[in-house]
């Protein structure tokens, strides 16, 4: 009964979606207020019905209803409750339902909080949002229905892929999807603006909070995914340039560019056409990301659903939305009036440069990810494009970008003074040089480039704080003045500083761990000791434990630093009988922001176990930096200016379409 209820709710959501896809457009064309107003109600109700469908699916998993195909294939009655819930989206069908749930959620938010949007703009936005939703409802109902039943219910399910039985699955996909799908709002706004043929600074002000929210979730989602891969896959890498990772990185790069160009548009009414294009591209890349992961066109370490038949349907969705969006752009964008001139050396100029580098980086990832597919399809030649390619091409793009980053927020609008800004960055630059020298002195070994990487990271971090420090008068004014000014400073200024600081922190972590990480690969017998980076690990022995749905062999290691015990590490190998698979559970010990990473290998006949032990200096900074970036986004989002939103539309629109 419950699956049928969910199925029915989804069909009803589709029906509402179809109404919302058509009625507001007619309303906007004929200036019919009730028809336009319909969209808000249907958007809310779509969310309610998709929510019911989603809850129904959760209920199927929680009650282990194995008469439902997806539950049978992806769950097991002995799984802990949390994994029963997360396995809802640990498979293709359920993850698509999560996708539309989030889409409907964003649609409902626009419906509920878009009161001060001009009514026709709101009507078009919600209509476009519903076009996307309908495409995905149809995709789910026709090719990926999670509610299909089996003729006869088996007694037991086939269990969730053990690699996915982790708290990471509870956090990573929802965050990532909030980011992916959040990009749809900017897309809908862009399409609506193109249909209306009108775009102005107020448009950017409405779009920016949505983009910011999506970007925040995407940042957190990618970071979470990276950390999950780091501890779960057992070889301690933090980024693999896997096509699935690239699929999430591309919208992030485009979204970051969009975030910055929207600032220019909001403040200076410039870069309008470019901002529109980025809004379309960011969501297009999100769709491509979904396509790459879902269609099985790439089979990679992350992919848990492969079915080429679905690929054709998603390909059609891609063609319609990306092709349609870009065609509409090509047709309508030239009609929009450009505004806001600026000198090349200015805040706008800096942001244009930022956009150029970010989009080129995005293009690099795009070409690198899809080139092997295209080449094979066209010529039959097979080549591989992997980490060494991306590392080589990405660094030359990101190093200048990071070097320029502290300059941007210090530049004046319209016409800046690069020398003046450089002067204000003296402290940051000086600290960076000191960091380079200090790194050379302390750690001469390793890559010769590493000290410069550390120096750049320090420059970025200090440079990020420069604007705020100057504006609140820190180190110059009495403390009371500083406090007053600090609380008076717009939160978006704090947000910018924190996010840019986070980039420096992440860079520091990456440079440190790629240069100074050390490892030992050894076979140990009980009571033998291995030492690395000042730590000694003694293998105490193996023990067997039973988990809720697995058995595991746990190796116990006592960790000593300079002879003093500092803790115990227990890496294990888990055996899941239901799938006859084994997972390696690495043990991590956090020391400050560095980590010891211990991963268990095979045993040999003489009773020894092979282990891989890594010391990862400052590795946590990689993800802490991303957390700082996301928090910076959150601070900006809480800025009063954005929270209140744009002012009520004036009787006369600020900007008329160009004749």
């Amino acid at each position, binding site marked *: 009964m419950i699956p049928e209820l969910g199925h029915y709710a989804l069909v009803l959501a589709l029906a509402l979606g179809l109404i919302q896809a058509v009625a507001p457009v007619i309303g906007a064309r004929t200036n019919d207020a009730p028809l336009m107003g319909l969209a808000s109600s249907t958007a809310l109700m779509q969310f309610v019905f998709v929510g019911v469908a989603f809850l129904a699916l959760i209920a199927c998993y929680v009650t282990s209803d194995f008469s439902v195909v997806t539950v049978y294939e992806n769950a097991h009655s002995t799984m802990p409750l949390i994994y029963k819930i997360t396995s809802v989206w640990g498979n293709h069908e359920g993850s698509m339902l999560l996708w539309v749930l989030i889409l409907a959620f964003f649609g409902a938010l626009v419906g509920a909080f878009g009161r001060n949007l001009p009514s026709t703009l709101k009507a078009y936005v919600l209509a476009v949002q519903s076009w996307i939703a309908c495409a995905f409802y149809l995709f789910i109902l026709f090719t990926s229905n999670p509610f299909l039943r089996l003729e006869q219910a088996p007694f037991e399910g086939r269990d969730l892929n053990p690699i996915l039985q982790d708290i990471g699955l509870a956090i990573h996909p929802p965050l990532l999807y909030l980011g992916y799908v959040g990009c749809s709002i900017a897309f809908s706004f862009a399409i609506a603006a193109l249909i209306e043929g009108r775009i102005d600074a107020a448009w950017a002000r409405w779009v920016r909070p949505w983009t910011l929210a999506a970007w925040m979730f995407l940042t957190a989602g990618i970071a979470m995914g990276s950390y999950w891969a780091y501890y779960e896959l057992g070889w301690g890498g933090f980024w693999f340039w896997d096509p699935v990772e690239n699929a999430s990185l591309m919208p992030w790069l485009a979204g970051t560019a969009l975030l910055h160009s929207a600032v220019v548009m909001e403040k200076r009414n410039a870069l309008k056409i470019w901002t529109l294009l980025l809004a379309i591209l960011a969501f297009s890349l999100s769709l491509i990301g979904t396509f790459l992961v879902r269609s099985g066109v790439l089979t990679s370490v992350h992919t848990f659903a492969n079915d080429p038949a679905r690929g054709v349907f998603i390909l059609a969705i891609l063609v319609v939305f990306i092709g349609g969006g870009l065609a509409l752009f090509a047709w309508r964008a030239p009609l929009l009036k450009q505004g806001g001139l600026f000198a090349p050396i200015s805040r706008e100029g800096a942001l244009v440069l930022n956009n150029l580098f970010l989009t080129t980086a995005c293009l690099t990832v795009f070409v690198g990810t899809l080139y092997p597919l295209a080449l094979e399809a066209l010529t039959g030649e097979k080549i591989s494009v992997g980490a060494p390619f991306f590392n080589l091409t990405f660094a030359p793009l990101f190093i200048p970008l990071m070097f320029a980053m502290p300059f941007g927020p210090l530049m004046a609008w319209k016409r800046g003074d690069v020398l003046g800004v450089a002067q204000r960055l003296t402290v940051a630059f000086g600290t960076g040089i000191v960091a380079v020298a200090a790194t050379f002195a302390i750690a001469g070994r390793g890559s010769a480039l590493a000290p410069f990487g550390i120096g750049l990271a320090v420059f970025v971090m200090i440079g990020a704080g420069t604007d705020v420090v100057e504006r609140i008068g820190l180190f110059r004014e009495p403390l009371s003045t500083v406090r007053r000014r600090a609380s008076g400073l717009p939160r978006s200024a704090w947000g910018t500083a924190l996010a840019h600081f986070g980039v420096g922190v992440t860079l520091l972590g990456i440079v440190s761990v790629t240069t100074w990480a050390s490892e030992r690969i050894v076979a140990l017998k009980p009571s033998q000791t291995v030492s690395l980076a000042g730590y000694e690990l003694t293998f105490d022995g193996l023990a067997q434990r039973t988990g809720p749905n697995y058995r595991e*062999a746990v190796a116990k290691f006592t960790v000593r630093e300079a002879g003093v015990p500092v803790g115990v590490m227990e890496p294990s190998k888990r055996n899941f009988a239901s799938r006859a698979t084994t997972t390696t559970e690495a043990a991590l010990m956090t020391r400050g922001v560095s980590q010891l990473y211990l991963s268990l290998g095979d045993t040999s006949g003489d009773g020894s176990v092979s282990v891989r032990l890594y010391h990862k200096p400052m590795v946590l900074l990689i993800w802490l930096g991303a957390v700082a970036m996301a928090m910076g986004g959150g601070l900006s989002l809480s800025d009063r200016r954005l929270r209140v939103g744009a002012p009520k539309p004036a009787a006369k629109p600020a900007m008329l379409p160009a004749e």
Partner: protein
Amino acid sequence: MSHRALVILIFLLSITGPAQAIQPDEVLNDAALETRARNLSRELRCMVCQNQSIDDSEAPLARDLRLLVRERLTKGDSDQQVLDFLVARYGEFVLLKPPFEKHTLVLWGLPPLVLVGGLLWLWTRARRHGSRHQAPDALNQEEQRRLSTLVDPAARDH
């Protein structure tokens, strides 16, 4: 060996899961050679895996390739000779960083082309706009008079 340890050992041996990436017995004694082997391993694709280098992969083929790389290195091959040998044997698919050739022209060429093209376009645009807008015409007498009335209300009386 105690009875308990034996049970655990049998349990562990019965695990038919993936073997580990690089094994202790593969590691070469010569540290410099081992470092070269590791660096080469990161450039080589495990061909039965999805986007994994032989350094990361747990597949038996990756292990064979790791051993092969080490064997060639101990025989005195240079890094390039090892790569050439593997390409001759398995094709370019084995390289994670494709060589710069005719069929990879777009792959290697497009990003720098877009970056340089974008910079040039911005530069020419800035120059064009700069010459047109940086020095606006000076105010004529009428404008000057209106400006002074706006700035200084007292001037209105004159």
